[in-house]
């Protein structure tokens, strides 16, 4: 102990360094800005915490079967509520989210299949073949597309493009599609225009801004010299693109795609308007009406409030929690991936 003290006093003092004024604390501005900067993190934790708290009884009652069963019975509100597993619930209540999970995943995948090649194609043409003026013109369209409210997308989908497709396009496709493997999904009844494919198309339009604007920025950052070198070796424009440009920025494109997928998974209003809103039925073909987790929450929350035991509202919290965890992981994963390999940051939110 004593020797310790002695040694410490013997150590030479660090020379005093002159510190420029910029390093000195700013006082109130710094504190206020620090509080503001912590706010989003707190909001995120609060959202997660409240959802977990709300969902807990529903998780206990519905069990893990919630994610693989396909029923949606709020129960009989006229009978005496019952307690199971310590959770008060209406008699005969039974929830399983399988159908809305399938609906969420399928509609988002359809959106991705449409949006990814379209976005990449447009971004490539704009950044490699056309000049900067066209690039900023495309920017206007993308900004507009990102700015159009999702209810307006829904309105367009349900009153314009849905009826148009189901009248003029879907029947022809359904009639001529061969009865093999995946293509079988395009056969059968085509419905009234509200369903998986229409929703997928609307969702594609909504996630194109995210993927297209990011990939455009990524493509413009690929060094010209490398591409020109490849071209000088005799590669065609397409080969330069697939063998040089794309691999150069592939991580960024994967990140943007995952981000777009997360946005499609969580999109609410537009899908609620064009899905056909059915609960508890699995789609039978690509035109089938369906429902997603987000759309189910928005369309059934007010009727769920009728459930005096609160189980219906809490079950929606369980669904919301599942949706949030998936989008959270997608967002974090995409950003970590891109941050590690590229200097281009992914866009925030809608991609404007």
């Amino acid at each position, binding site marked *: 102990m004593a020797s310790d003290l002695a040694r410490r006093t013997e150590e030479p003092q660090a020379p005093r360094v002159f510190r420029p004024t910029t390093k000195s604390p700013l006082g109130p501005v710094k504190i206020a*800005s620090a509080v503001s900067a912590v*706010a989003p993190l707190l909001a995120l934790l609060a959202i997660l915490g409240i959802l977990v708290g709300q969902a807990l009884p529903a998780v206990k009652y519905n069990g893990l079967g919630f994610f693989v069963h396909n029923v949606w019975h709020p129960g009989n509100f006229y009978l005496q509520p019952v307690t199971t597993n310590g959770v008060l619930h209406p008699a005969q209540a039974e929830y399983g989210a399988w159908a809305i999970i399938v609906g969420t995943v399928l509609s988002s995948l359809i959106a991705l299949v449409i949006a990814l090649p379209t976005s990449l194609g447009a971004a490539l043409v704009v950044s490699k*073949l056309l000049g900067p003026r066209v690039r900023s013109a495309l920017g206007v369209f*993308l900004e*507009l597309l990102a700015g159009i409210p999702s209810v307006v997308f829904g309105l367009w989908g349900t009153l314009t493009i849905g009826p148009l497709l189901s009248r003029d396009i879907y029947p022809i496709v359904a009639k001529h599609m061969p009865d093999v493997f995946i293509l079988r999904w395009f056969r059968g009844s085509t419905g009234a225009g509200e369903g998986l494919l229409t929703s997928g198309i609307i969702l594609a339009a909504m996630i194109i801004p995210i993927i297209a604007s990011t990939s455009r920025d990524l493509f413009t950052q690929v060094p010209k010299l490398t591409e020109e070198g490849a071209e000088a070796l005799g590669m065609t424009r397409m080969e330069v693109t697939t063998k040089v440009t794309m691999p150069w920025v592939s991580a960024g494109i994967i990140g943007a795609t995952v981000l777009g997928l997360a946005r499609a998974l969580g999109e609410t209003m537009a899908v609620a308007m064009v899905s056909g809103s059915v609960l508890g039925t699995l789609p039978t073909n690509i035109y089938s009406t369906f429902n997603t987790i987000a759309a189910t929450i928005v369309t059934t929350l007010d009727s769920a409030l009728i459930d005096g035991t609160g189980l219906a509202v809490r079950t*929606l919290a369980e669904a919301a929690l599942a949706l949030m965890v998936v989008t959270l992981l997608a967002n974090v994963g995409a950003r970590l991936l891109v941050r590690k390999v590229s200097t281009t940051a992914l866009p925030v939110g809608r991609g404007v």
Partner: protein
Amino acid sequence: MARNQEALTRIRVRTRRRKAASTVAISMGVIALALVTVPSVWIVAQVAWKALPHMSWSVITTPGVGLGGGLENEIVGTLMITFGVAVVAGFIGVMSGIYLSQFARGRAAGLLRGASEVLAGIPSIVVGYVGYISMVVTFHWGFSLGAGLITLSAMVVPYIAKTTEVSLGQVPSSYVEGAEALGLKPGQILRTISLRSALPGIATGLIVALAIAVGETAPLLYTAGYSQNLPHVALTHSPLGYLTYAVWTFYNEPSTRAVQLSFDAAFLLIVLVLALIAASRIIVARASRHRETA
């Protein structure tokens, strides 16, 4: 000799095929470019086409009555919510951006930045649900302006924080160093040099955030509620209407007038969003012109 000739033809055929493939790929890219521009133009044209023939001043100047009337209550509500978001999210977002660009270092900075970016990616209905459970139910605020604009602010703060941080980061370090050399205090430098030259960027981010706030529905449905009365200036216990609600409820009502109102509301929303986007473009253009001459 013959074998050489054969090899040469094979190469020629292959080259022709590769060039053809490239041409096909390029034309598909051009088609993709066309496809990207179609939906936005189509939606704007369609909504204008459906709304303009029966648009009149009375739509803007009378509040809703049942499935008819006008949209005055929704317009005022949307403007109030947007103004509130501009104040709340504007303050928190700009301050947050200042912190991230000026003070935050290392791990903590990464965490805060990441949390903000991830927050913007959370599905809007999830944020709306939590806003409903916490503010409307637990805090007993009822459906109200306060609950609506706080929920909405949580969604748009990340945009403002990001653009503020980026534009502050783009202020040339020579400006700051020059000010330091002249003996300005850090607070003065931030206020008169950094923030001033970053202002166009910050304003653009704020405007984009407002455009998003104007168009959101899901976070408001269960927090701001709905009312056909003109909104009261009260933060709690007073539900209010907004344009996106009109689109969402009137579109499938069995009344021609209701569907018309739905399109009218959609048209007004698009006009608002377009005006905001145009404003941000003008700010960016003027700022970059200024930079060139300076």
